[in-house]
């Protein structure tokens, strides 16, 4: 049974319809990158999956059940999201912050402390945060912060983690660190669905890429199949060259600066 199945979904904000007629299925264990131009509807798709937004038409099923029938407190223990930006950042220690992920599991007086502690330890461990556990999250570097945010999501839901541009604004060292940690999580069985604006990161790391343009699915498939210069050029309305990345063997896209275009 697919983890998520979307059938003819339309969604948007207020008057504006952002996504048109989206249908797709996501299987457990996938590592999905959602790519596409700015404003295409990538984050909107993620908001549907995290239930921040309800579909206007069509049905969204989680494990075969219409999400409308799942109360928020039953959904939160199974699906976690790493937001691109938090509205407010408070000086909680890394450990306390990661422990917040256990909230959906503890709310009904289910306070089996030892087990929650174990899950938090595992989450800190997999994100290599043990040495930082006592540090306030406000004092961390961008990469460390992002790892804490992901660890919190791991503590919340081991099954599915949604991420909205988790490596935007990070330097290349932190980008690889964070992405490598996501790979590690995925290897252990977590389904990862992440919005990425970097096509090359998506190609190198994801098992499947869903490209969105103008609110509909443009292409969907394994990086090697869908990343061709023709596809990327018409996806982004630009000019580019696609080669093979000599290290990963995955397609690598170079945008062509205007003055070199003929």
């Amino acid at each position: 049974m697919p983890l998520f199945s979307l059938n003819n979904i339309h969604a948007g904000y207020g008057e504006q319809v952002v996504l048109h007629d989206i249908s797709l299925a996501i299987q457990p264990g996938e590592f999905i990158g959602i790519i596409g131009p700015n404003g295409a509807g990538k984050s909107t798709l993620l908001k549907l999956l995290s239930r921040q937004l309800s579909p206007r038409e069509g049905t969204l099923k989680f494990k075969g059940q219409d999400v409308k029938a799942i109360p928020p407190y039953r959904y939160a223990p199974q699906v976690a999201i790493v937001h691109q930006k938090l509205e407010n950042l408070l000086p909680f220690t890394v450990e306390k912050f990661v422990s917040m992920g256990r909230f959906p599991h503890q709310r009904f007086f289910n306070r089996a402390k030892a087990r929650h502690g174990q899950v938090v330890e595992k989450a800190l461990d997999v994100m290599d945060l043990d040495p930082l556990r006592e540090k306030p999250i406000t004092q961390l570097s961008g990469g460390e912060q992002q790892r804490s945010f992901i660890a919190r999501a791991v503590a919340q839901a081991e099954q599915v983690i949604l991420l909205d541009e988790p490596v935007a604004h990070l330097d290349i060292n932190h980008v690889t660190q964070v992405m490598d940690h996501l790979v590690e999580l995925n290897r252990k069985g977590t389904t990862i669905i992440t919005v990425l604006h970097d096509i090359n990161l998506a190609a190198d790391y994801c098992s499947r890429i869903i490209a969105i343009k103008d609110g509909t699915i443009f292409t969907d498939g394994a990086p090697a199949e869908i990343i061709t210069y023709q596809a990327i050029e018409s996806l982004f309305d630009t000019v580019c060259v696609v080669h093979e990345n000599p290290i990963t063997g995955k397609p690598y896209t170079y945008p062509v600066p205007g003055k070199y275009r003929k």
Partner: protein
Amino acid sequence: MKKLTMTKKRNLFITLLILPAGTGILLMAMILGQVNIAPSSIVEALFHGTPETVSIILYKLRIPRILMALIIGASLGASGVLYQALLKNPLAEPFTLGISSGAACGAAFAIIMSLSTGFIFAGAFAGSIFVIILVYLLARKFGFSSPALILGGLSLSFIFSSAVLLLFAFSSADQVHKALMWLMGDLSLARYDYLGRSAMALGALLIVTLLYSRHLNILSFGDDFAASHGITRSEILIIFWVASMLAAISVSLAGVIGFIGLITPHAVRVLSGPEHRVLLPVTAVTGGLLLVMADTMGRTIVSPYEIPAGIIMGFFGGIFFLVILLKRGWSG
């Protein structure tokens, strides 16, 4: 192991700070007044009831007033913590949201109409609930995290303050004076007859706030963050109404006392950190002690005249806030 000792150390430090300071403040509040009572006579009077005059002053006047100040200060402080987490705004508290002005308007109306104390309480309560409903409607329109809520609260505050002045324009001088004293947060006019029941209600609400401490931790990071943890709208509404009831009952009992809900949480956070399980009770205790201190000062500075605690709080609160602002800059 290390983490345990760190948290424990901090909690121990806070306890060691508050316990003697609190005892000192409460003792001073019993000693000082129009008549100063020697500490030895306090012990004598409290445990043996002699001499009778001292015992009466303590049991009938000072102790109820101290208890009143404690519970009201605690409620205003806790209410501030709740509003700040809910609105993600460091300026949120009953005063800036206009709730105090609503209460003032209701109370002033009852006083001008020469109604009995019961009606003054009821008027203040109705006034504050009216403003709370307006703030709630604003929140429904703009969302709980919007700065528009504070601006809306301040607008309501201006409107109701003008309404109070309008009432005064049509009233006799002594009624105006009585109403003014109430408006300035004068605990000598506090409704002791309601102390027992209100204290129970406020105490119960304070306990409820503790049950929501983990919700508050998550909420203070933002609404999307809270929603992704499965926190529902109805839970947010419960927290809003608990905060509002704490504020409404407090201002109805003791009049307009600003700044406790604003400065106490900010000051306590420096010591306790952002975690509500610690922040809430420490703010409540500190807020209570702060109001006892303000009231004691008001009773003694120009004795036999009394300065309402609300005025003292206004002075010290304003100065304190400015100092913090100048020292740390505005970081939100």
